[in-house]
């Protein structure tokens, strides 16, 4: 399991860059970023090298943010590797709300996803021999 920070952003010009500036000023390194947006507001999802520090910097700057746990795995660099794992999750009735990929420290692809049943997801992935992070 890894932690991700979710930041609420209203639909206004410059908000993403302001958010990144706060992190830059706090000396935070971003490992990954993804934005979910509707026409009204957006949720910025980031994984950093120091989530606690990033969260406190964002809160101080007035950004509504919270930590969210993601199930994360390292995916072997070969065709169909991700599909096999997702099929196993699907067959085990694990619902994935969203997922995105990022680079691991060793350069391998990693996948993080949010689910309502993380324990079950972890158990299923272990059964498949997936490398959990």
């Amino acid at each position, binding site marked *: 399991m890894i932690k991700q920070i979710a930041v*609420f952003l209203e639909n206004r010009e410059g908000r993403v860059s302001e958010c990144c500036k706060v992190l830059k000023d706090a000396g935070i390194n971003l490992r990954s970023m993804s934005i979910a947006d509707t026409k009204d507001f957006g949720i910025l999802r980031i994984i950093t090298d120091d989530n606690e520090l990033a969260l406190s910097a964002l809160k101080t700057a*007035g950004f509504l943010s919270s930590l969210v746990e993601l199930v994360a795995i390292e995916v072997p660099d070969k065709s169909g590797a991700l599909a096999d794992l997702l099929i196993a999750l699907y067959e085990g009735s694990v619902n994935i709300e969203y997922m995105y990929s990022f680079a691991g420290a060793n350069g391998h692809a990693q996948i993080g996803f949010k689910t309502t049943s993380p324990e079950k997801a972890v158990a299923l992935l272990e059964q498949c021999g997936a490398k959990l992070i």
Partner: protein
Amino acid sequence: MIYDKKIETMSRADMRALQLTRLKEIVKYAYENVPFYKKKYDEAGVKPSDIQTLEDIQKLPFVTKADLRENYPYGMLSVPLSKISRIHASSGTSGKPTVVAYTDEDMEVWTECVARLVVAGGGRSDDIVQICFGYGLFTGALGLHQGWERVGAAVIPASVGNTERQIMLMKDLQTTALVSTPSYALHIAEEMERLGYKPEDFKLRVGMFGSEASSEEMHKEIARKLHVLPTDNYGLSELIGPGVSGECEHKCGMHINEDHFYAEILSPEDFSPLGEGEYGELVLTSLTKKSMPMIRYRTKDITKIDYSPCACGRTTARMAKLKGRTDDMLVVKGVNVFPSQIEGVLLSFKEIGGSYEIVVTREDYKDKLEVRVELVDDSIVGDYGKLEKLSADIRHALKTVLQIDVKLSILEHKSLKRYEGKAKRVIDLRKY
């Protein structure tokens, strides 16, 4: 043409005498039949017998919308429920609506009052009238419906929405008269243009507009685009609904049905009576309402009154177009909206803060209401589903109370302007 020549062209002296007789009767009737009035008058130390002249009305305390709310739903009734033949409601300042009721006699008065305004506005028995007000608890649609029927016109209860279909009906059924809000009339005109129609493709000639204020420029645009004679009419459900006053073809103020409604113009500061032609708050007294007498009801609408005879031959007093309100009520899509209603809904959601903004705009002649709130609850930021649900729940709660759709914008905390003094919560960007 005048619908009720005897009443509408009565001399001022005769009208005042009739009003005084009826005022004495209604004050006595209310005092004897509605505990609310007895208590109010006893506390103020006035008795029905203190009313000897029309000016003596100033001795009586006012009635406000808050009184109706406190006596929700039936506390203001002067007759048993078995005598009630109709119940309507309008939006209240908080969650509960303002309920109004009618006896058979009230229904008859209401219908006659609207029939007079229909004729004054140019309506005739051979007209085909399309009523584009929302049918339901709102008094506007059924009030106009009854009045037009009484005049002998063919009534199409088209209700609101689906403008293309409204236009189709208007063309196919050869509608000659339109009843709607003035902004909806302009929206219809725009849609007609868009669909490639010309005013000549229709048989429209009369337009009776109400339930929201309108400017003379707006009327000119309606006249040009729809080829109708546009007139305003005014009313409020607390008094009767539409039927309090309406313009004649000379368009120089709305003729008040003074035999049923006594009008005062008072200073909004100290409630002292203002002279003819001076702008102030309109305070109305229903002189004949049997189910629910309204004595000195504060409309909170600002207008002035002209008592001189009109070129049309009517002698009834004429009230000018409304110049504003003494409270913060908004009229959006013809529906009364109080910021306090919106605030009440927002306060029930702990995820959002106490700051909010209400923005009213008009696009293509259609009103839009936007409510801007601030998210203060960190804990749901990580859960997209919860945010979406919050947004849907707030919109649903607002719609339940306001009866109209609201665009909701959830903003970041502290992004709305803060005020040191009285907060400016309402931004009305409509041009007219």
